[in-house]
């Protein structure tokens, strides 16, 4: 029987919701009550984390094989559709809940400092709380629709927060883009739900997964379709090809938002979904392969773009896309634990990187603000040598960089290595995975390169901020550096969560998640690598990472950079990368504009206005009027003509009578 803390599991999402309501009310009526806002905003997160931690502790003692489902009320009971508003707590949800509330709490704290001067402070915290609520609903929901509530809800909050500074159109546009692109993904999610209900007769996770094996033949068309539609949802939410374009734009939001939503939590929802539905994906090898393939491709593709970005946050954004690709490679490979592991470590180091960049931007912004300069506070070409002004930030970000580059023994090394190892292992059974593995390795190389580039340009070399501005550059307050330090610590030791057996670890996360993934695991080919091969893989991974970093250090010359204002335009391949392969432009030309044109010119102005309304509706009215007019012209007033018509009538009537 679940104990007290588990019974209170509803508090985990409810607390942020309360926070949202309170902060929302404050935002509307008392926008300047910042102390109250901060207390509520951070407080509910801390409390939620506490409840979640307590629940997980209890859960760990029970460690049940089946998830605990808590039904609260009937949501949509219609005929054989029995849909309850229910939460589900299991090992997977526990991991996610902890990450969301934990990292969330840190980022909330950071935000207290980062957003302190913002007039929309209360609104910001309201949105942030709301986001956490939806995110928790997403991870705790016991059925697809409940999860979908969270799924769309986080999209909504992402929309609201990206467009937080809505009085600049570019921000509002970015938010809108995020929402609409996400909706395309949600279409996939919806259709998948329809298919699932149609075939299994339920939408509850427990029932669907229990029935899946009986209902779906392995590798059947239906289950493949379901997984592909689900994955379409994931590509939207987790910014994978082809729906990744919104994420870089999402950097228009406040930086803590980028850290929380667009790095640590929301964008990983897709990974969570695949892990959650591991049974279905295991039944659909083609679906899994698509997941892994798209993940690998996205990882590589995004990494190339990251090579040539100047905006510090955009580099991190593409890096996020790339790392998400890794995670999909992992879960697509069937290494759910590895994927989740990378999700967790990525949450730590990417949050750290984003918050670090936030710290940098905060400083830069402060400097520019002080001198009334209008230069871009996020362009790395305006930075350089910041380690002297922001030593803590620089140090912590270096830790994160090493982690993401995959340098042992930082957390990122273990998680990334596990994914690559799993892909390589599967490749022995299905050679296509060699390609994926190679792409993963190449990505690792590029990752090490561009992250080193970022660090070099930002923190090293001469400073390009400006002479006057330089004096205003300094570390932020403790509320901002504090969370950075915690995250740095987690980045350092996070690897312990799933220390591989190879190095004597217990693979804790792997075993923890086993009840969730067991069913899916059983349906996959069992492959084992010899220890030698594993060591070789580890060695090559480290070598690749080192090569990337070393190459960057050798090839790049921070000293040669000029400030963004003076920088010459990019040329050649550099321009192609800088312009992000022109994907946005291609989408614009192929989809957005044609649809707009079609809707405006064809549907509205032609079909609606001209044909339906003009020709048919008003046309028939005009025709009636015209006929009437002709008729009234015939009424000439001359009796002679009337008589003629009269006699014609006589002839017709008489003819008709005699006929």
């Amino acid at each position, binding site marked *: 029987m679940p104990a007290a803390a588990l019974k209170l599991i509803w508090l985990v999402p409810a607390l942020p919701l309360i926070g949202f309501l309170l902060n929302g009310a404050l935002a509307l009526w008392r926008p300047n009550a910042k102390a109250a806002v901060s207390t509520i905003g951070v407080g509910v997160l801390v409390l939620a984390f506490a409840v979640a931690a307590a629940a997980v502790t209890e859960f760990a003692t029970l460690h049940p094989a089946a998830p605990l489902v808590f039904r609260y009320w009937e949501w949509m009971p219609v005929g054989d559709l029995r849909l309850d508003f229910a939460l589900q707590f299991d090992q997977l949800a526990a991991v996610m809940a902890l990450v969301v509330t934990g990292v969330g709490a840190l980022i909330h704290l950071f935000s207290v400092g980062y957003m302190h001067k913002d007039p929309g402070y209360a609104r910001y915290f309201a949105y942030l709380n709301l986001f956490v609520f939806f995110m928790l609903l997403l991870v705790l929901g016991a059925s697809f629709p409940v999860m979908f509530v969270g799924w769309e809800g986080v999209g909504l909050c992402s929309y609201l927060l990206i467009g937080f500074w809505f009085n600049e159109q570019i921000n509002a546009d970015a938010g809108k883009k995020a929402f609409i692109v996400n909706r395309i993904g949600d279409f996939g999610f919806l259709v998948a739900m329809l298919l699932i209900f149609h075939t299994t007769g339920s939408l509850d996770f427990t029932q669907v997964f229990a029935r899946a094996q009986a209902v779906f033949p392995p590798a059947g068309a239906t289950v493949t379709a379901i997984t592909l539609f689900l994955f379409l949802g994931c590509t939207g939410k987790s910014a994978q090809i082809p729906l990744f374009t919104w994420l870089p734009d999402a950097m228009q939001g406040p930086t803590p938002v980028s850290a929380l939503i667009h790095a640590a939590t929301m964008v990983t929802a897709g990974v969570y979904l695949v892990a959650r539905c591991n049974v279905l994906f295991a039944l659909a090898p083609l679906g899994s392969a698509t997941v892994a393939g798209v993940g690998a491709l996205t990882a590589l593709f995004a990494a190339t773009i990251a090579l040539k970005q100047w905006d510090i946050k955009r580099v991190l954004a593409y890096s996020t896309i790339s790392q998400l690709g890794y995670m999909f490679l992992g879960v697509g490979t069937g290494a759910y634990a590895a994927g989740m592991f990378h999700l967790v470590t990525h949450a730590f180091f990417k949050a750290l990187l984003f918050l670090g960049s936030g710290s940098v931007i905060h400083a830069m912004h402060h400097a520019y603000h002080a001198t009334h300069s209008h230069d871009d506070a996020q362009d790395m070409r305006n930075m350089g040598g910041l380690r002297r002004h922001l030593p803590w930030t620089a140090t912590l970000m270096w830790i994160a960089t090493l982690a993401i580059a995959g340098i042992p023994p930082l957390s990122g090394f273990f998680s990334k290595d596990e994914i690559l190892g799993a892909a390589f292992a599967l490749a022995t059974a299905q050679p296509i995975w060699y390609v994926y593995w190679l792409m993963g390795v190449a990505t690792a190389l590029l990752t090490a390169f561009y992250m080193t580039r970022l660090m070099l340009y930002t923190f090293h070399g001469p400073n390009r901020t400006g002479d006057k501005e330089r004096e205003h550059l300094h570390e932020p307050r403790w509320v901002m550096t504090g969370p950075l330090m915690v995250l740095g610590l987690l980045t350092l030791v996070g690897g312990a969560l799933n220390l591989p057996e190879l190095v004597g670890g217990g693979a804790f996360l792997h075993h923890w998640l086993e009840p969730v993934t067991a069913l899916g695991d059983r349906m996959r080919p069992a492959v084992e690598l010899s220890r030698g091969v594993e060591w070789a893989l580890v060695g090559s991974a480290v070598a690749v990472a080192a090569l990337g970093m070393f190459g960057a250090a050798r090839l790049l010359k921070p000293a040669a950079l000029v400030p963004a204002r003076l920088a010459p335009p990019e040329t050649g391949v550099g321009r192609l990368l800088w312009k992000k392969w022109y994907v946005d432009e291609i989408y614009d030309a192929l989809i957005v504009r044609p649809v707009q044109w079609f809707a405006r010119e064809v549907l509205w102005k032609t079909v609606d206005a001209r044909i339906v309304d003009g020709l048919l509706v008003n046309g028939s009215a005009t025709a009636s009027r015209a006929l*009437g007019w002709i008729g009234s012209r015939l*009424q000439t*007033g001359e*009796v002679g003509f*009337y008589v003629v018509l009269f006699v014609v009538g006589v002839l017709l009537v008489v003819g*008709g009578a005699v006929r």
Partner: protein
Amino acid sequence: MNVDLSALDLSRSGDLLVALAPELLLTLAALVVLLVVAWRHRTPQDLRRAGWVTLAGLGVAALATWFLWWNVARASGIAAMIAVDDFRFVADWLFLGTAALTVLVSFRYLEREELWAPEYYVLLLFATLGMTLMAGAEDLMVLFLGLELMSVSVYVLAGINRRSAPAAEAALKYFLLGAFASGFLLYGIALVYGATATTNFTLIGVQVATLGLQHDTMLLLGLGLLLVGFGFKVAAVPFHMWAPDVYDGSPTPVTGYMATAVKAAAFAALFRLLGEAFGAVPAWREIVWWLAVATMVVGNLIALAQRSFKRMLAYSSIAHAGYLLVAVAAGTAAGSAAFVFYLVAYTLMTVAAFALLAAKGTGGERDVAIDDLAGLAQRRPWLAFALAVCMLSLLGFPGTAGFIGKWYILVAAVAAGQGLLAAILVLASVISAGYYLPVIMAMYMKPEPGEQAHAGMQLGPLGNAVVAVSVAGLLFFGVRPNRLLEIARTSGASVRVAPAVSSSAPPAARDASGR
């Protein structure tokens, strides 16, 4: 006052006098008014006096009709000149009522237009008398003479405003075409007489049945020509061309009278004729079908193109003739009942509409464009309301008697298997929304053109009463039509239906004196 009138022997003078009491009283009234007019005819008071005497005459005749109706007067035997049945009484009431409403509206109109011709009332009475004879006619000769009596009177009424060139033109057109049409009607009578040796409706029906004449050339030719004659009187397309011009040129109360009572009389006669004499002849149904379609469509379409309110009403009345023809084409008992009901509703709304037009048209009704009514609702809310109700009723909108009437016609048409005709009727009604609604639109939704745009619009107490009674009737019968429906049903059912064609032995030849 319960008297047994259930078996009047019309060959006996006493019974004949009873059966003809309304007509006789009406004649008497006409003669009295003539005397009154001959005595005094110079001042407005004389005019009014004549009017009141006329009203009294109409009232007495209506009482007599009521008396007959109340005591369920019926003739014994079949071959009479005059029918004694509910259909006649109800139709008579309608004519008398319409005449009374017209008189009431005329009081003010004649004075305003300075028409010091009290003979107006005499002619009105004669016309009404002609109508009652038409509705009661059981014989083609009575029908023809009644029709001529009515027509001659109305020709004159149309042109009674001798200062007005349009009125003279209207009278001329009406007269010339009317006489022309009478020729056809008469020829039709002759041929029907030739085919059946009789002019009595019932006997024609009997002859058709016993002799199997339903495909007889002479009879069909005669029937066709009769339809032409009636088609003219009811302004069915393509015999309608006179109507807009005549309605337009005539004094407005007369127009209202023509559009309602004259048409109603022709329809009543047509109904009785087709039912009693030609019920077994299929040929007319198709003709009436086409006439109905053409009339509805053309009337509505041309009305759509009108800017003058009066001409619009004229064309609209053509369209309504088309609706009534649908009831005729349905030809069932339900059809006749629908027809009676519709006539009542139609009369109420048309009289009221023309009364309002007459009030509006101080500078000549012909010049009142629909847009001239702009802003009437602000200045004269009740008049605007009344006119709006009339328009909605003409449109056949639920809640008004016009709707119940149209509904009844549709019921009859559908029951007679004329679904297509019913569909055409409703589509034509949709077109009619295109010209009725602008009237409402002008009154309620457009601003008043000038401060005093509607200052001169006066109906006077009598005119107000007419409009009020009409509108109240329209609304009342629109919600609670039960009693009127019952009357319509019983009166419609009282028209004898021609016997079906049988193969029994032909009757023996009759003697030369034509009994």
